[in-house]
């Protein structure tokens, strides 16, 4: 099992990663190795094994529907690269 350069370029684009040509080569090689390693699992017969939804065995962890104080707005937006005291500011989102 190996990945194509196009596969890696697509995944990089979805992850918003800008890869140079060299990096793309390198990633294709290394990711293929990882996928190849995981592919070892395909040698096992898993027809009787239930898919694992979660590594912990526990289920049904809930909290009650009780409000608690939220952060003050100054704190909520404090670490934003750009803000106007009220909102996070981001490059214009147009259309859609």
């Amino acid at each position, binding site marked *: 099992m190996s990945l194509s350069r196009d596969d890696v370029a697509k995944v990089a684009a*979805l992850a*918003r990663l800008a890869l140079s040509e060299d990096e793309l080569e390198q990633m294709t090689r290394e990711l293929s190795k990882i996928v190849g390693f995981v592919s070892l699992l395909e040698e096992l017969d898993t027809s009787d094994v239930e898919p694992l*939804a*979660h*590594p*912990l065995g*526990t*289920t*049904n*962890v*809930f*909290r*009650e*529907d*009780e*409000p*608690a104080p*939220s*952060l*003050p*707005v100054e704190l*909520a*937006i404090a670490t934003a690269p*750009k803000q*106007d005291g*009220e*909102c*996070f*500011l*981001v*490059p*214009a*989102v*147009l*259309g*859609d």
Partner: protein
Amino acid sequence: MSESTDNTAPYTTVIGLEVHVQLLTKTKLFCSCENRFGAPPNTLTCPVCLGLPGSLPVMNREAFRLAVRAASALDCTIAEFTKWDRKNYFYPDLPKGYQISQFDLPFSEHGQLEAIDPKGGFAPRTVRILRVHLEEDAGKSMHDEAAGTADSRIDLNRTGTPLLEIVSQPDLRSAAEARCWLGELRLLLVYLGVSDCNMQEGSLRVDANVNLHIPRADGSLAKTPIVEIKNMNSFRSVERALTYEVARQYEEWQATGKELGSAPKQTRGWDDAAGITRGQRHKEESSDYRYFPEPDLVPVRLTADEIATIREGMPETPRALRQRLADTWNISAYDADVLVGQGRELVAYFEALAKLVDDGKVASNWMQQDVLRTLNDRGITIDAFPVPAEGLADVIGRVKKGDFDTSRGRDIFAEMINSGRSADEVVAEMGIAAVGEDELMTLCRELVAENPKIVADVQSGKQQAAGGLIGQAKKKNPNVNPGKVRELCLKIIGELPAP
């Protein structure tokens, strides 16, 4: 095509809807921030919904309960095992870079809901529901177009609030059916107390998938590419957008012959002012969201007993209520639909009234005319209505007894609404007193004596001529009951010696 509602159309319209509703919880889905519309921007956030590192989501029990209740009412099968998944995409209103949603094991599937047009515009349509799942909402981005290239402002108050996604099968066959079905869905969810379904505030959002099946001369079927329509902000715009899109697809097919599969699924936005749909970006393939199981939340397992308990606590559905009102109070399906459409509180008022006056039809008429008109005029709901059912029942009782006629009763009721006074007080104040038998007899004798022409007409067999006496009677005393005046006058004339 027998399935087409519009029998004149040379094609069948195929519509499926995807509906998002916000749940009526006090807090968000995975944190204890308030779930509230209209707060100042970014005042309802915390490390969990801001997606800060090291924070962990914990499921809101009430959100899950409301979700199961909604799915049960939609006849869905509730899964005994369900889990959460991450849906990965980048957008400024999604601080984590992924949405916690449900992918392969939603908590419910395979339901149905019927669309019924009370006016009989189309045959009842049962629409299958593919799945209902629970997910978190995103925040809001605001952009001031006038400011040109300025930044967009992001408000994360809505981020992480609980959202129910309801996906129908493509079973709807016209824009009118889609609108009607949505109306029924909204009513059901409001009755269940699951959501307020306020479209203006975005607590109910609809996307529609639509294409056409066009029979060719050789008997085969041409299918147009599926289009997803977004940005519809009212049920009316859903109907308008679908009507527009159906016509547009047929024209495009005639011009290009393009079919499903030859073009990717297209997303088009509805422009309400222009009354058209416009092409938007191509939809990413489902796999591009790179779903994977959410490691921060454990799955939920429900026993059959627990599912049964949630089902038992379910309030009456609008459909069951319509049937019961029609059966119990002997009103038409249409009348029951109007009353039920106004909400559970108004129905409670109606039932109290119907019981007091022991007459469903009369109660329904007064509700639909006098009560509903006042509610609409004042823009209020029934809980703010100034006259309790007992007060209206008092007026109706007096009309039935013959103290005054219906139109006089209406005036009295209107005054009770305006002043908040009782029927007794209004009657006294307006000088409306029941006209005694003796007084009425005297008045009728006068009328007969003063109107020899009418008397002669009646004697010659024209009973309807007596109508002329009623107008005069009302002038003499506005409180007289027209029916009684007519009856008495005819009796007096009948006892006169023949001419």
